[in-house]
């Protein structure tokens, strides 16, 4: 279970950061990886916007690339 709440408010924050991220897999419906877990699409690290995201600060996260590594624990 992720420490990040899967809700509409977080999703609207996330879209501003993950949506603009070079690593964002771009699979329809996928977002808020820190809450929902990794993407189903193959990905390569190409920089990560998580550290700039308000959710990352709000939940005091300490990792990056949740779309690759999976949800925040």
């Amino acid at each position, binding site marked *: 279970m992720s420490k990040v709440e899967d809700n509409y408010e977080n999703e609207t924050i996330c879209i501003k950061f993950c949506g603009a*991220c*070079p690593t964002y897999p771009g699979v329809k419906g996928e977002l808020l990886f820190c809450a929902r877990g990794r993407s189903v699409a193959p990905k*390569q*690290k*190409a*920089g*990560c*916007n*998580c*550290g*700039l995201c308000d959710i990352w600060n709000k939940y*005091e996260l*300490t*990792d*990056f*690339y949740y779309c690759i*590594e999976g949800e925040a624990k």
Partner: protein
Amino acid sequence: MPRDIPVGNDSFLITFDHDYCIRDIYYPHVGKENHAGGHKFRFGIWADGRFDWIKREGWHLNLEYVHESLITSVTARNEILGVSLHCNDVVDYRENIYIRRIIIKNLADSEREFRLFFHHDFHILETPIGDTAYYDPDEKAIIHYKGSRYFLMSGMKNGIRGVDQYSTGIKEFRKLEGTWRDAEDGKLEGNSISQGSVDSTLSFSIFIPPHEEKTLYYWMTAGKDYAEVSRLHKLILGHGPEYFIRRTENYWKAWVNKEEFNLANLPQEVMELYKKSLLILATNINKNGAIIAANDSDIQHFARDTYSYMWPRDGALAAYALDKAGYHGITRQFFDFCLDIISRGKESVGYFLHKYNPDGSLGSSWHPWISNNEKHLPIQEDGTSLILWSLWFHFDKFRDIEFAIRQYENMVIRCGDFLASYRDTRTGLPLPCYDLWEEKWGIHTFTVASVYAGLKAAENFSQFFGDTRRTKIYRKASEEVRAALDKYLYNKEHKRFLKTILPRDEGSFEIDLTIDASIYAPFYFGVFEPKDERVVNTMNAVKERLWVKTEVGGIARYEGDIYHRSTDNIEEVPGNPWFICTLWLAQWYIAKAEKIEELKESLPILGWVTSRALPSGVLAEQVHPLTNQPLSVSPLTWSHAAFVATVLEYLTKLERVYICPACEHPLYRHERIK
């Protein structure tokens, strides 16, 4: 033909070749818009019906600088023409004015007329198409213009402005060579305007009694419109050219001596090259803080591109040297330049790309964004990490907190997060990228060591600003990188660090056993102590294998280096000697020294650098292993920065090891007590 004796300010730079021809005129950025484009601006003289262009052949020509200033001191003597010249070239430290003062001495026993010719082969905005050159009777000057770029040339003799002869003409078209050919009979035809691919020549006539000398001034002003070049021209006329020469000489003398470092313990030639290096470094820095790698357009003939870019790595290392030398005003602008880049575009995720133009736009690149149908981040990661390393050094020395918090919030955390996360979760190593030589893709000792240093810098900043979450992230990442460097890049069988490893699909690594001078990095960036066995073994291997076994000596970049290769004798000449690589060995001697005798092991290398510099003090990128001629670009910012840094590291260490045996207080102070 490499460049020498550059003179400039932060928006107008002029370089010369070995024949004392102007070859590059950069305006309005240092390094951007080369309006000469490497073409020769000839300088000639006529006397007694004979004519010659000043050059090495047939002349005793010596190109140097005035002591501790950014003014040239050029002497040229020709026995056949019976004349000697002493010239000083200066670009005003503030205004975009270039002045040449020429003292002409008549070596003959009779009074004679001398005619001096100044030729202009502009390619404004880097193309010969659409230029205009004309004689302006209001200004008594030749003006070249295209669009919003204007250059005005005129001069003065005996206190009177204006030129005696002029001509404009067509060049590089239907076998027309230009007006410089017209000058060779001592007379100019007086064609008053030309358009298209054009050049111009102007001339002054002066009568000089036997064995006497007279002074003449020639100048060029640069601006974005007629009003600007005219204003600068009138400024020279109003104040007189000597005013600008004197004030610029004074300014650079004050600039280079502002810190009053105690340099007395250095050999004289090292002390002199230290100051010359600072001044030459200053010529390669743009007004917006961009530190340009080199401004020698001659390299275009080799690579169809130039070094007139801000490479983040070169810039960071130069900023470190400048900060060590006390020039925090320049480096703050440099870090702001970097901050501007990292705040936009692809870079906003926390990495710097290959290189940048002097105006901050993205520079040309040969690194692909895709490889084997997969996205492939085309970075040299050391370019990102060294910016942080250098920024922390800056802040730790100057403690300019208002500046630093802006840098922390907008650059350090972006780059720190990137360095911490752009790693292989299995090994802890940074992911592959291009090496510092921009040649190889893989995981490189130099890059990994620099990533460690960048993460430590980010950790230091976050700790300073109380950002405990990020402190933990960066600390954990740096520890993992350090352990991974030891585990994967130190080779126990060969007892040294490896240049590069490349991950294979099944999880093993392909290793590159080439000995490369850049494997010095683990000690320099603080990953391991300089006396650590792994470092000692590595540096001994570098010294043994990469020292060039000719009379020229020096350390090559790596075994089998083909860049500007000058001999196939790889055993004795593994590559051409590079100034930076040779200085890395000196930096190791300095870093590991615990006694003054050990520290002095570095002095022969500093002496080697001074003996391989041009008489002006200019350091190229490399030198020919057999002839000591400069190779590749000159001056190279990184060569001068490495020399400045090494000298200051020497002096800092001297303060620590040169101590009173009784009271253990230093017997030497690096900074004079004011």
